[in-house]
């Protein structure tokens, strides 16, 4: 059996004079999680809607497992579990009935349905609510049911549009656990997100889109290595205020420190060259210089640095 795949060829979507997705060529294949990143209005949701035939391309085509979504949506979507735009479920249905509808329409054998439905609901911690009407649920609860609906047929491909929307921190953590579990089961997850730590945590590869154009698509390690140019920033908190003179002598003098920014009287941001070893050496240098350090941590993740630099360049 071939590995799951998602492909777009020259995919373009215009709304009047505005081009939301511009000649997007992307091929994602294999068991992995790909983070689809970009600022608001970058074209992420539009691209996902094109991938699921909810809207139609101005030009180009997309494929799920090699089947054209535009020419055969039914066959193409058989392989995919989809969550786009936090959909609403018919309010008079219960989660069990809603998932049963999905299972029925996807031809999950009747004998397997109950087990699969309850497993999916347990995965999103909604099993206790299986037989209550969806109409009374909060936004976060509905989103959990939507995630369960995308999982109920055990899809090869998952297309998720900001799946953590509306979820509390515990719910977000559960989504990350679900994605990790799917990766172990050789599934391909293509997930748009604004939450960069979430992407760093679960994704193997990232695709960055801005103003409808794909800026890059590569593994997370390659992206951070390529774009960060070995620079990081670290926030340092001290127990007492530090003078400018002390900053000059005790901080800026450290070998790997390129620049120091004062955040307030007792907090500094160090822009540094190198990686973890240089950071450890810098921390030791600060302590050896007699500074009472209470916190020393990366100011932004490497992905965030790359994201911000690439997006600002695009603007």
């Amino acid at each position, binding site marked *: 059996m071939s590995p799951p795949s998602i492909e777009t060829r020259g995919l373009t979507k215009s709304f009047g004079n505005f081009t939301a997705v511009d000649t997007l060529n992307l091929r994602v294949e294999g068991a992995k999680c790909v983070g689809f990143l970009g600022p608001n209005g970058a074209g992420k949701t539009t691209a996902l809607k094109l991938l699921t035939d909810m809207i139609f391309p101005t030009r180009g085509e997309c494929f799920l497992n090699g089947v054209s979504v535009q020419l055969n949506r039914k066959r193409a979507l*058989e392989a995919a579990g989809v969550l786009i735009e936090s959909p609403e479920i*018919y309010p008079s249905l219960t989660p069990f009935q*809603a998932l049963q509808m999905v299972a029925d329409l996807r031809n999950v054998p009747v004998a397997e349905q109950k087990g699969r439905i309850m497993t999916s609901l347990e995965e999103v911690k909604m099993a206790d609510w299986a037989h209550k009407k969806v109409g009374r649920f909060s936004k976060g609860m509905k989103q959990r049911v939507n995630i369960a609906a995308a999982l109920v047929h055990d899809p090869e491909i998952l297309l998720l549009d900001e799946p953590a929307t509306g979820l509390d921190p515990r719910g977000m953590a559960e989504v990350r656990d679900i994605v990790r579990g799917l990766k172990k089961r050789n599934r391909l997850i293509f997930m748009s997100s604004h939450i960069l730590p979430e992407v760093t945590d679960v994704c193997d590869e990232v695709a960055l889109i801005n103003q409808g154009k794909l800026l890059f698509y590569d593994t997370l390690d390659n992206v951070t290595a390529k774009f960060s140019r070995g620079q990081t920033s670290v926030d340092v908190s001290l127990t007492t205020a530090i003078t400018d003179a002390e900053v000059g002598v005790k901080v800026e003098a450290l070998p790997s420190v390129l620049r120091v920014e004062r955040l307030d009287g007792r907090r500094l941001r160090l822009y540094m060259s190198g990686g973890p070893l240089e950071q450890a050496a810098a921390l030791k240098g600060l302590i050896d210089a007699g500074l009472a350090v209470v916190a020393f941590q990366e100011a932004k993740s490497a992905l965030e640095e790359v994201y911000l630099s690439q997006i600002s360049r695009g603007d």
Partner: protein
Amino acid sequence: MGATAPAAMAAADPSNSGARRSPPSYIQVLRLVRYQLRDYLMSRRFILMIGIVAILGAILTAVVGYYRPAGLLGTSANFYNQLWAGGVTIVIIFAGVIFGGDAIAGEFQNKTGYFLMGLPIRRATVYTGKYIAAFVSAFVALTAFAAILVANGAFYFGSGAFTVAFGESFLLAVVYLLALLGATFLFSSLFKTSTYAVLVVAVMFIFGFSILQTVVALIVKIEPWFIISYASPIIGYPFDPTIPAHYVQEMLGGPGGPVVQTWNPTYIEGILIMLGYFVFTAVGGLLLFEREEFS
């Protein structure tokens, strides 16, 4: 700019996909109807529709029972002609508005469409499933209204209440329901906002088509065969010993007065208008839905 991850492997072979095949579209229609029906029959809208039918039936029962009008209770044909044929179009219009008005528009406005359209299902399947579910729900309301009148008829006429004419009229009402729901689905597909769709459907069927029919007949002076409301009187024809003349020309206030032309549909014409409306509006609505984007 093309992009392929370094780890990318050979091209996928669609025929080799392990995805579970979805059922044939006609099976999906039937399955979707089941869930849509469950949604309709458990919803407040169904209670509202049954409430309207119950109130209409109660008023008719009480008024006839209290006043016992001799003309109305003379024969079962008179009884049904005035109560059934007069009231059933109102029931059908309400049922069409309640079950069909937001059927498609609601999928966009309420975002329930995003749940359905992520599934391996054709848009035509969704449209057909929703149409059938709306039709069955409206049919239940229509049948409830018929049952109330037949029960009244049985009270006044005994076994004479169960006539072939009533059966024919009921079938014509069902054809009218088909046509009206087709038209409501067309209007519903035109809008992405349920309120607009419901409002336009209600206004068109309660006033719009009747006014248009009058304007066409009296001012343009042509037969309004292309207006759905023109066909609805045939529902009462089975109870008439003489079917109205197709074309009548008379002078208001006697000779020398303004000429007024009146058209009445023939049986065949009425049925063809209803079926024509059903086919053209249902297909038109489907074509619109096929092109509508969830943007």
